[in-house]
């Protein structure tokens, strides 16, 4: 069994095409699972909307800011980045960044918007799999990202290290959740855990290094902001006002 799985990994490593971030494409999930993931995603999106309304009520610049962040998440997740072990290019998820900057609930909303535009105009993800993608990339990606970031910051880890771990674990969290969604949706009569482990292992060559790349990307983004515009990080509550001006 292990040899077989290694063989499949070898096939994917040798694929000359670009590898992709783990959006679940249109049509993969059967109808009942598509509905279930929509039902799971919608309360989070609704709460994100409620939080967004509260934050944008008094600050007219908040709406354009969130729209622009959605555009940036969209662009980042389309950027080709090299995955060393796979020898291909891949696209990061990018959800840890808005989670760190504007909080996880609004980040879910941003992800939902970016996913809908990607599904319609780039065929990345899909309309029926929008719920599943929001759960993995938006809900899990954002909460893991912010949880790790805030946890490490409380333990006095540096901004760069906290952001790196947040980005990396957020990506791996997305990868795990997508594997659960795929295994549950396509398993047929096969036992869940058996298929889940195969999917998980099959994507290891691209997803593990991709997590590290995403960690580096998140750390690079936060440290650059800290060096050039610490006031923005302080305004958004990412760092304490007195930290602005200190070294990373």
């Amino acid at each position: 069994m292990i040899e077989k799985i290694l063989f499949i990994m070898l096939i994917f490593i040798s694929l000359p095409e670009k590898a992709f971030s783990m959006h679940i494409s249109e049509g993969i999930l059967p109808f009942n699972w598509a509905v279930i993931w929509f039902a799971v995603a919608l309360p989070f999106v609704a709460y994100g909307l409620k939080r967004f309304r509260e934050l944008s009520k008094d600050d007219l610049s908040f709406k354009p800011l969130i729209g622009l962040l959605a555009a940036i998440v969209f662009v980042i997740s389309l950027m080709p980045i090299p995955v060393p072990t796979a020898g291909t290019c891949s696209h990061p998820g990018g959800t840890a960044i808005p989670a760190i900057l504007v909080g996880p609930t609004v980040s879910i909303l941003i992800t939902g918007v970016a996913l809908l535009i990607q599904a319609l105009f780039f065929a990345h993800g899909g309309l029926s799999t929008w719920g599943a993608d929001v759960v993995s990339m938006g809900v899990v990606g954002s909460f893991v990202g912010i949880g790790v970031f805030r946890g490490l910051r409380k333990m006095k880890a540096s901004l760069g290290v906290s952001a790196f771990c947040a980005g990396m674990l957020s990506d791996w969290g997305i990868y795990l959740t997508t594997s659960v969604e795929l295994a549950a949706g396509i398993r047929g009569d096969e036992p869940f855990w058996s298929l889940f482990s195969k999917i998980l292992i099959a994507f290891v060559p691209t997803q593990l290094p991709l997590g590290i790349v995403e960690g580096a990307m998140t750390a690079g983004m936060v440290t650059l902001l800290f060096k050039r515009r610490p006031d923005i990080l302080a305004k958004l509550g990412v760092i304490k006002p007195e930290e602005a001006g200190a070294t990373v």
Partner: protein
Amino acid sequence: MSSCECFSDNFNQDHFLAGVDARVKLLVVFALIIMVLSYGGILFPLVIAAGSLAACLKMKVPYRLLLLRFAQPLFIAVVLLVLKLLFSGQEVLFSVNLFGLELVGHRDGLMAGLTIAARILGGVSLVIALGFATPFLQFVSALSWLRVPREFIEIMMFAYRYLFVFLEDGMTIYSAQKNRLGYVGVRKGLHSFGILTGSLVLRGFEQSQKTSEAMIQRGYTGDMPLIESVKFRVREVMMAMACVVCAGAIWIV
């Protein structure tokens, strides 16, 4: 082909589906997607895929653009097909000894894999056809008619407006970094990509500040105007119903 040219909305909108109400197109696609997802075989999704691809070709969508759109879904379809073929099922279809490794393919696994691959093809073709047939603003108007929350639509409109700006900015920075050998070696590549992301976020913040100031000066009070929905045209509704009924008949057969 630049990133912006790849965008469906940037594609020529002078085609046979251009005048059709976006709400009608959206509802037809929703109905067909539900049929594709709830179908247990291969035939129906493939018929839908063929129809959608024919519609794309009639809209004169370039082949290269179609291939680009299908690349990701096809990659995932191949992964799942191989997984199902080699790891699912009982009935042996073939057995190959490859460098001492015994690979067994299963007939029932292959059928299950093909069913999923057909569903992906059918679903993706529908969404691709919808993307090419519907300009963004009409799509937003249709979403508004479907009672999607206004804030969600407003964020979409802001995001869409600045996508092209950031895509161009991102590509410019990426090319400049590449020319300065910023992606030679893993460590350097990771560092360059971090700077690229940070620069984009920084530009985003600065741009959002400028945008909101400019909008407030022009009378922005927090709400953006959306296109008002007009009445449905009877002919379009009848055509759409005929299309869904025909698909339903194939689905049942």
